[in-house]
C-alpha cells in the first residue's frame, strides 16, 4: 500500500511532508519528556521487527492475492502513540532509501497513511476506550483499531493519488480495488497483533504498563486542519482538470471531434507534449545519453590506466 513518487505531484507530496513532519516534531517534543534509556532499544527492536514483518507477504484468505502487515497498531500499543509514530516513520524512511519502496517524495504521504491514522486516530479513539474493559473487549479493540486504521490509510492513498491526477482509474473502481483488500489485510494483522500482544502481556507485562495519553483536542484540531488542507488541495486540483476530463473537454470542443467522442477512440490534436519535434528530440537525447555514457566510461578507463 506504499504510495510511490511516480503517482503523486510535488504539491500533494510536499503538503503531506509538511503535515507528517509537523506530527514528527510534536511527537519528538512529547517524547523528550518521557523518554528513558529503556525505551530507546525497545523502539529500535520494534522498528526492526515491523520492518521485517512488512517484508513477509501472506496470502489473503479467499482472494489469492497477497499482502503484508502495516504494523502501526502494534507499535502504538507497545510504545505509545508518539514513539509508535516515530518508529513506523523510521521504518518507512529506511524502506524508501534501501528499497525505493514508497519513494522519498511520497514518504510524507506514507507516514501519514500508515502512521498518523493509526497512532493518532485509531489508537486513541478506538483502541484506548476498549483497552481497560477486559481481555475480550481489548482484543476486539485491537482488531477494530487495526482495520479502521488501515482503511483510513488506504483511503489516504486513494485521495492522494486522485488529487495528483496521475492515474486514470475512476474513484469508484479505485476504492473497490483498495478498500476490500485492506479490510482483509487489517483482519489478519489484527489477529497477529493480538497474538503478539497476548504473549508480551503474559511474559513481560511491564512493557505494556505505560499509560499513553493522547490529547484528543490535538487530534480534533489535526482533523480540522486536514479537512482545510484537503479542501484547498481539491480546489487547486479542480482548477486543473485531470487527464480524462481534460481529454473529454478537449474532444467535445470541436464539432468533428465531437462525433469521434461517441466512438471509444478520441483524437487529441496539437498535443503539446508529443509532437514530431518532440519525438525527434527524444531520439537525439537517447543518442546523446549513450554518447555521454560511452565517453565517460572511456575517460574513466583512461584515467585508471594512467594511474
Amino acid at each position: 500500500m506504499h504510495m510511490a513518487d511516480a503517482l503523486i505531484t510535488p504539491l500533494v507530496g510536499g503538503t503531506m511532508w509538511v503535515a507528517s513532519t509537523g506530527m514528527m516534531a510534536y511527537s519528538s517534543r512529547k517524547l523528550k519528556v518521557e523518554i528513558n534509556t529503556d525505551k530507546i532499544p525497545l523502539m529500535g527492536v520494534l522498528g526492526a521487527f515491523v520492518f521485517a514483518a512488512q517484508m513477509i507477504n501472506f496470502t489473503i484468505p479467499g482472494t489469492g492475492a497477497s499482502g503484508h502487515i502495516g504494523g502501526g497498531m502494534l507499535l502504538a500499543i507497545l510504545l505509545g502513540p508518539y514513539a509508535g509514530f516515530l518508529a513506523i516513520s523510521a521504518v518507512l524512511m529506511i524502506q524508501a532509501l534501501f528499497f525505493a519502496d514508497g519513494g522519498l517524495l511520497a514518504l510524507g504521504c506514507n507516514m501519514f497513511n500508515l502512521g498518523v491514522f493509526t497512532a493518532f486516530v485509531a489508537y486513541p479513539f478506538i483502541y484506548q476506550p476498549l483497552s481497560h474493559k477486559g481481555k475480550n473487549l481489548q482484543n476486539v479493540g485491537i482488531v477494530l483499531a487495526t482495520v479502521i486504521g488501515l482503511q483510513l490509510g488506504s483511503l489516504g492513498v486513494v485521495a492522494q493519488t486522485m488529487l495528483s491526477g496521475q492515474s486514470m482509474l475512476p474513484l469508484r473502481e479505485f476504492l473497490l480495488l483498495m478498500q476490500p483488500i485492506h479490510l482483509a489485510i487489517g483482519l489478519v494483522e489484527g489477529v497477529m497483533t493480538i497474538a503478539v500482544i497476548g504473549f508480551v502481556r503474559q511474559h513481560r507485562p511491564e512493557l505494556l504498563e505505560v499509560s499513553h495519553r493522547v490529547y484528543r483536542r490535538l487530534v480534533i484540531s489535526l482533523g480540522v486542519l486536514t479537512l482545510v488542507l484537503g479542501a484547498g488541495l481539491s480546489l487547486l486540483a479542480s482548477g486543473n482538470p485531470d487527464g480524462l476530463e481534460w481529454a473529454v473537454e478537449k474532444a467535445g470542443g470541436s464539432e468533428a471531434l465531437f462525433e469521434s467522442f461517441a466512438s471509444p477512440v478520441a483524437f487529441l490534436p496539437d498535443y503539446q507534449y508529443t509532437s514530431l519535434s518532440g519525438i525527434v528530440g527524444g531520439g537525439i537525447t537517447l543518442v546523446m545519453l549513450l554518447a555521454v555514457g560511452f565517453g565517460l566510461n572511456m575517460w574513466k578507463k583512461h584515467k585508471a590506466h594512467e594511474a
Partner: protein
Amino acid sequence: MKLDFQHIDELAQLDSMIHRRHPLSKVLVTLFFIIGVTTQDKYGMLRLLPFFFYPMVVFILSDLPMKRLMKIGLPGLFFVVMLGIFNPLLDQSLIQVTDSLFISSGWLSFGTLLLKGVLTILAALLLIGTTGMAGVSRALILLRFPRVFVLQVSMTYRYMSLLMEEAVKTQQAFALRSCGVKKVPIKVFGSMVGQLLIRTYDRGNQVYQAMNLRGYRPMEEKVSFEDFLWQDGSYILVMGLFIFVLTFFDGVGFLGEVILGGQR
C-alpha cells in the same frame, strides 16, 4: 548477520568523486531531482528522457553496480504498474503526431508513470549507495529533523541484523523440535513471534547498555557544517541548475525543432 539490502550500505564505503561529496549536498540534489521528475506532466514522457543523464553520470562516476541496485529497486515499481496499467484501458484517445502517425495517450501516460517510477527509484538507491545510512542520518540532523527520529532510524537499521540472528536461531529450534513440520501452526505463531521479540529486545538492551558504557551519547552528538566544502556547494549549484533547466525548459522539443528546421 547482514541482510542483502544492507550490503548497499557497504557500497557507500567506496571512494569516488560522488562518494566524497558531503551527505547534505547529495540529499538536497536527490530531493531536487525527484521534485523535477514528478513535476513533469503525466503525458510528458519525452521530457523525462534527459533526466536519465543524472543517474547515468552518477552511476558511472561512483562505480556502483547498476544490475544489483536495479534488482533491489525494481519490485518498488509494482504499485506504479498496478495502477498505471489501467491508463491504456481507460484513456483510449489518440494523439496525432503526423498525418499517419498516432500515439495512444493512455499508453503514453503509462510510459510516463513507468519512467517517473524508474527515475525516482534510481535516485533514492544512488543516494544510499553513495552516502550510506550514517551519512543520511547526519544530513537529516543538519536539516533539523528531530534527533529522536534520526536515532530511531539508525537504531531500527542496526537492530535489523540482531533480529535476523535471533530469527534464524528460533527457526532452527523450531525445525529441530517439530519433526518435519514445515509451516508454523497458528497456535504457536503468537508465542514464537512474541519470544523472538522479547529475545531481540533483551539482546538489543544489552548492546545499547554496552554502547552507552563506551560513551555512546546519540542525543548529544555534535554535527556541524565544518566539513562542507566549496566543492559540495558547487555540486548542489551545478546539479540544481541542470535539474531546474530540465524541469522548466523543453530541451527535447527544442532539439527536435532545430533538427526539423522550426517545424513542430
